[in-house]
Every structure is written in C-alpha cells, then in structure tokens.
C-alpha cells in the first residue's frame, strides 16, 4: 500500500525527478570521464613522459571526489525536500516509521545506483566522442586511450554507491527523527541573514591566508614538488568556501542598505539571494573551483597546443629534405604550393658532402637563430656559402641531408674544384610549405614513400620536429582540453541543478509579484540579475585562481604559461555567457509559465 503511495508521489513529480536524475547522470558521467584518464596509468605514462602527471591526476581525483560529495549531498537534500511533504502526510495518516524508513532508503539507493549506471555508459560514450573530436581536430597522437576502462567504471560505481548508502542513511535518520508537522512545513523556512562580525572577520582572515598559502605553493612547485599541489588543493578549496561564506552574507546585507535596493525589484532579488544563502555559498565555492579547473585546463591545453608550432618552427626553416627526388615526388611537392623549393647539387663521400658555393650564393640557405629560449623567439637568416661556414648553423643543413649523407659535413667548393670530384652527382631538394600542421598528412605520405619508414629519426627538418614535438605534447594537450570540457560540463550541471531545483519554489513568488502589478519586463530583469550574480561571483574568483594556478605550469612549459592567455579566456567567456543565457531562458520558462 505504502509502496503504491510512494510510486504515485514519484509519478506526480516526474519533472523534479528528471532534474535530479539528469544532474546525477551528468555528474557520474563526468567523474567516469576523469577516472578513465586518471586510472589508466599506461595512458598517462606513454603520452606525457612526465612522471608527475600521474600524481597530479590523483590529486584531481581527490578534488573531484570532494566536489561529488557536495554535489550528492546537495542532490540528496533536493530529493529529501521533494519527499518531506509526502512522508509527513504518510506519517499523519498513521504509517509506521520503520516502513517509511525502508521506503526512503530504497528510493535513495534506487535513484543513486540507476543514475550512476546510466552515467557510466554516458561517460564512456562521451569519452569516446570527445577524444575522437580532439584527436581529429588537433592532430594528436595518443596511445593506450580507452573509452571503456573497467577500473574507472569500478571506481565510479564504488564511490557513488558508497555515497548513496550514506545519503540513504542520512535521509532515514533525518525523516524518521523529525516530527510529522515539521516535515509538512519544512519548505518555507528562510535563513535570516546575520552579520556576526567576529566570526566573519575570522572567516575572512583564515580564508585569505589559506588562499595565499595555496597560491604561494602553486608558485613554488619546484621546491615543494607534489606536496605543493596537495597543499594548494586543500587550502584553496577551504579558503574559497570561507570567503564566500563570510563575504556573501555581508555583501547582501550591505547591498540592501543602499538606496538602489529600494528601486524596482532589486530588494526582492537581494532577498531571494540571501534567502538561500547557505546553499548558495556552498554551490558558489564549488562553481568557482570548477570554473578555475575548467578554464585552467583549457588554458594549459591551448598553451601546449600553441607551443607545438612555435617549437616546430624554431627548429629548421625547411619542412623536409629529399635526396634524388623522382618526378612524381617533385609533382607532390609542387602540389603543396611551397613557399620555397630549392634543389642543390652535391657529391658525397663518407665524411663530407660537397656543394657548389655558387648555388648557395644564388639560392641562399635559410637558417634559424633562436634569440630567447624562454620565449622561443628567433630570427631567420639567409646565408650564402661563406656565411653558413662561419655561422655554425650548418647543422641545420645537415639535418636535411638524410640517408647516407646524414653525418657528412657540408663543404662549399668553387665550380672548378667541384667538377674535379669523381663521385656521382646527386640532388638535395629542400622545401618549405606555409604550414606544416596544415599539410601534415601530405608530408607524411611523401616522407613515408621516400624513406620507407615513418620513424622520424630517419629524416630531419621542420616536419620531423613537428612530429616529435606533437607526440611529446599531444598527451598534455589532450588532457588539458578533455578535462577542461569535462569540468565545464560539471560546472554547467552544478549551476543548472541549483537553479532548476529552486525554480519550483520561486514560481509562486513570481506569480505573486505579477498579481501586485509587476511588469513582465521587471520580472525578467529580476531573474536576469539574480542569475547573473550567481554566475559572476564564482567567475571572478575562478579567474583569479587560474591566474595564480598557471604558475604551476612554469616548470613543464617552455614558454610562459601566460602567453596568448586571452584566447582561451575569450573562448571560455563566450561559452560561459552562452551558458548564462541558456540558464536564464530555462529559468524564465519555468518561473513565468
């Protein structure tokens, strides 16, 4: 009988359950996505060559677990608030507490486990899809990447089931220990925002100190090593939460005292915000952390991506050097519309490659001289024969002399001396396309056919260094982008969840405002403002975290991690704005019918 009653409650509120369900599915899917990388040690080792990466991921797991913990406790209180009324009613009509306890326990576990299972499946699909897109669009080379990775699924399931067991127990106690009447009216209890100056001052001070410690240790990873990441993780999470807790209450009260609070619906918006202050501070700190993680990961990913052409270009001015090209190879080169395409004649013995100086004077050989290693800035120099000899940059020509001439020192002879040599004359063709990355497929085909191998150590030039740098950075780049997307999705699901779970309770408030003569325009702008605050505050904190967090990457990035930072920030801002607009739209639709 009771089970039947519970089921009707379930049917009645399917919309709310849909919100709860999709939120949980997204969360477990993202957790799985993360674990699919973090628990796959082969993948981490093979693709980065940086032993620390594995540890960084472990810390990431810890952080994500904390976030999941809060997220689930949050989802659970949403579930509880949905059911409180129903269960209160059951108790009023005389249902036994033990029976109700069973029901709550069962319902929580059922919701949790089914959402997690679906989440793991979705996570596998997302991992496969996102990695395909990234690999194809960025031209990455990855090994051992598996969308379905059993240990990741096991970790996800274990954590979620464990958390839901705890949540079920919590619900059981919360519901059966509370008197029925209180359950019936638990929805309409505001949190009176209070200023407790001493406590808030302490919160602010401790919060600021923790964040400062976190920032400092991120900047001193060289000395602190892994400890630094651990310290930063704990202190920044703690500091962010404390700061939001202290400042949010204070900010709301301060704003309410300003004259603008009396204009239009501003007072209403501020009251709305302070009404749910407790939920908001927790959520805002999570969102700020996720914002920082997502933006940071994407920035680092793009940072690595932008280093690939930089490092590639600072290596050699020519894409490939081919000896004795065939007609068809020449046609293939021409098809690439190269910027430069030079053929030098030479004769070679075991140790030396003889060129004619006149050819080099006619077609100078371009070398690259790196000026600032930290910034990878370089200048190109067009050299005639005498200059190459002097400059010490002849190794760049040697890189292009592949095959048996590889180690031969170039020597530039007068035409007369060259003619006297007995060795057979050969040709070295060197060319530069406008962009190796863009022509990577054609270059690969050409090189493979010419050298009968894809091992880049057998051929030199810009293309070879591209392949080497790319395989070195692909893993890092992929992780940055992949995690950035995952965290962004998690952030979206967090905010979405928060806002939608409150929308139902807001409905009657907005209906009431309409009854006393509020215009549609006023209602809309009140909604816009309320949600904007919820987006902007964690956004600002997140950006500050990222700016300091990038310090960590000084040790694994060659250029400054801050170069070109505006681009990922801009992309992220656009995505975030888009996400804000979608949220406002959904919220408006729910609240204003």
């Amino acid at each position, binding site marked *: 009988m009771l089970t039947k009653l519970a089921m009707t409650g379930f049917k009645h509120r399917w919309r709310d359950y849909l919100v709860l369900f999709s939120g949980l599915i997204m969360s477990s899917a993202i957790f799985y996505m993360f674990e699919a990388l973090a628990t796959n040690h082969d993948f981490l080792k093979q693709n980065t060559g940086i032993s620390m990466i594995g540890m960084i991921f472990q810390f990431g797991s810890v952080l994500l677990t904390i976030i999941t913990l809060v997220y689930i406790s949050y989802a659970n209180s949403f579930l509880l608030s949905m059911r409180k009324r129903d269960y209160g009613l059951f108790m009023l009509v005389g249902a036994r507490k033990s029976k109700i306890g069973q029901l709550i326990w069962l319902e929580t576990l059922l919701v949790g486990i089914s959402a997690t299972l679906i989440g793991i499946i979705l996570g596998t699909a997302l991992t496969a899809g996102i990695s395909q897109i990234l690999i194809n669009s960025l031209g990455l080379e990855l090994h051992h990447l598996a969308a379905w990775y059993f240990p990741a699924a096991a970790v996800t399931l274990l954590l979620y089931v464990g958390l839901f067991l705890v949540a079920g127990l919590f619900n059981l106690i919360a519901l059966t220990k509370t008197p029925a009447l209180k359950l019936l009216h638990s929805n309409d209890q505001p949190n009176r925002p209070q200023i407790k100056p001493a406590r808030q001052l302490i919160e602010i001070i401790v919060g600021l100190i923790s964040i400062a410690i976190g920032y400092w240790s991120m900047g001193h990873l060289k000395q602190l090593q892994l400890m630094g990441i651990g310290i930063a993780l704990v202190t920044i999470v703690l500091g962010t939460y404390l700061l939001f807790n202290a400042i949010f209450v204070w900010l709301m009260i301060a704003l309410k005292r300003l004259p603008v609070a009396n204009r239009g619906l501003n007072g209403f918006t501020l009251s709305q915000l302070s009404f749910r202050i407790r939920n908001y501070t927790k959520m805002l700190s999570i969102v700020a952390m996720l914002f920082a993680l997502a933006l940071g990961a994407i920035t680092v990913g793009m940072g690595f991506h932008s280093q690939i052409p930089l490092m590639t270009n600072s290596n050699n001015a020519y894409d490939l050097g081919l000896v004795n090209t065939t007609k068809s190879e020449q046609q293939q080169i021409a098809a690439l519309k190269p910027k430069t395409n030079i053929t030098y004649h030479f004769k070679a013995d075991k140790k030396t490659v003889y060129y004619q100086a006149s050819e080099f004077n006619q077609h100078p050989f371009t070398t690259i001289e790196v000026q600032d290693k930290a910034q990878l800035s370089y200048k190109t120099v067009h050299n005639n024969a005498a200059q190459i000899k002097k400059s010490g940059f002849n190794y760049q020509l040697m890189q292009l002399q592949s095959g048996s001439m590889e180690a031969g020192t170039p020597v530039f002879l007068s035409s007369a001396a060259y003619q006297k040599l007995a060795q057979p004359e050969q040709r070295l063709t060197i060319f530069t396309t406008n962009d190796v990355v863009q022509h990577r497929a054609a270059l690969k085909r050409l090189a493979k056919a010419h050298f009968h191998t894809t091992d880049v150590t057998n051929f030199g030039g810009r293309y070879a260094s591209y392949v080497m740098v790319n395989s070195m950075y692909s893993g890092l780049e992929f992780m940055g982008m992949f995690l950035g997307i995952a965290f962004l999705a998690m952030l979206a699901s967090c905010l979405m969840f928060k806002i939608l779970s409150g929308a139902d309770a807001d409905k009657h408030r907005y209906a009431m405002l*309409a*009854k*006393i*003569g509020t*215009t549609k325009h006023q209602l809309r702008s009140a909604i816009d403002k309320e949600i904007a605050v919820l987006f902007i505050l964690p956004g600002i904190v997140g950006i500050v975290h990222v700016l300091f967090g990038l310090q960590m990457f000084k040790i694994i990035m060659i250029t400054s991690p801050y170069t070109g930072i505006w681009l990922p920030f801009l992309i992220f801002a656009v995505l975030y704005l888009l996400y804000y607009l979608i949220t406002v739209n959904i919220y408006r639709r729910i609240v204003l019918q």
Partner: protein
Amino acid sequence: MTTTPIMTVTDLHKTYGKAGSKQYEALKGIDFDVQPGEFVGIMGASGSGKTTLLNMLATLDQPTSGEVTIHQQPITHLKGNQLADFRAKEIGFIFQDFNLLETMTAFENIALPLSLQNTPAKQIKTAVENIAQQLGIQEFLTNYPNELSGGQKQRVAAARALINDPAILFGDEPTGALDSKSARELLDLFTKINQEQAVSILLVTHDPFSASFCQRILFIKDGQIGQELQRGDLDRSDFYQQVLDTLGTFEQ
C-alpha cells in the same frame, strides 16, 4: 444613486475549458455596481463561482464575455504593462493564504508596491510606517512572515494592499485561515479603513459573520446573483441575523 459607481460589472460570463473539450460555465451573466466607499460582500455556497467572479474583477483572469470597468476604465482587455500598472495603482488584494513573500521582511513586503514604482526610499519609509501604525503592526516590521501569526500576516498583507491608495480593495476569504478573534480584528480594521479613508471594499466570503460587516451583500448561486441584501441602518448583530435567515432560505 447620483454618484458615478467606482466599479460596474455588465453581463459577465465565464466558461472554463476550451471549445471542444469538456466545458463548464461558472458565471452566467453577472451585473452590479459598486459605489465609491461602499463595503460589498459576495456570498454563496462552495463552487458557486465567488472566486471566479473575484478573479475577473481583479484582472487576475479574463471573462469569456461581458465588461468590467473601474473608474470608468474598461479592464477586461488590459494587457502587458498597462495591466501591471493598473494592478499596481488602482487595486489591492488580500488572499486567504496571505501571499506574502517569505523571503522578505514585513517591511519589505509592504514596501514592494512602492519600490516597483521607484518611489524614493525616504517616502517609502514614511508611507510604510504610517500604514503600519494604522494597522497596528509597527513592532513586526522587521519580522519574516514565518515569524508572524496568521492574523499578523493578514494585517501585513492588508498593509501591502493599501499602501498604494487603491480605488478598491478585493478580499477572497481573507479571514478563512484566521481564528475568530483575529478574524474579528481584521474585519474591524476593514470597517475602519472603509469609513475613515473611504476605500471601497469587495469581500468574498462564505462566513455569515464576516459578511455582516458589509453594507450590501450579493448572494451568488450557480453563477448568477440570486439575491441582494442591504444593511441600511441595521446594527451589525441584527444584520447578522438577517444574513443567517437569508442563507437559510437561499440555499434551499
């Protein structure tokens, strides 16, 4: 009567349900006027159409046909900002379930209609304090609704309804959730503001005691006005008896 009525209702019909689906005619042609400063009651059995009628009059719902004018202005076809402005300036409501915003203090709730018009903060403060004084709720102004009793909540709601000096005040069973003492206090309050400030009041109720505070009572049965009762010079307890008698015969 020589005065122009503050509200006229002409041949008002309301049919629930869309054409084609199951339809129900809740109002079947209602006509009446309300004079300035009049205190009118609307009575009827449950389901007779009282709330439906009030919602039409208060612009909360649109009639199927017929017209309502307040201050000579037809209101049934108002839309968008005009409708909002009209609600904000010309009418006040009090509902059975208070309809206060539980996120705001009593003061903020009462001030809301003025804030919506962007009234300067100083002016808002004096207006709220004045009305709170009249309704005897000065000491509760900083409380949140869940810290108030039902009677106090309803007085806060009344203060919010009155702060804009509306032409007419609508109440749908405002005493419905109150005990008899609080109900009586609220009704005395209505009488006071009706007499002192000449605010017209339209009160929907099924409670004869509440109705006996009115000057005129319209009885609704099956979506039509079945009978009308004038208090005239009767004192309240005699009128109460008359209402009871009328109900006895009317509801047969």
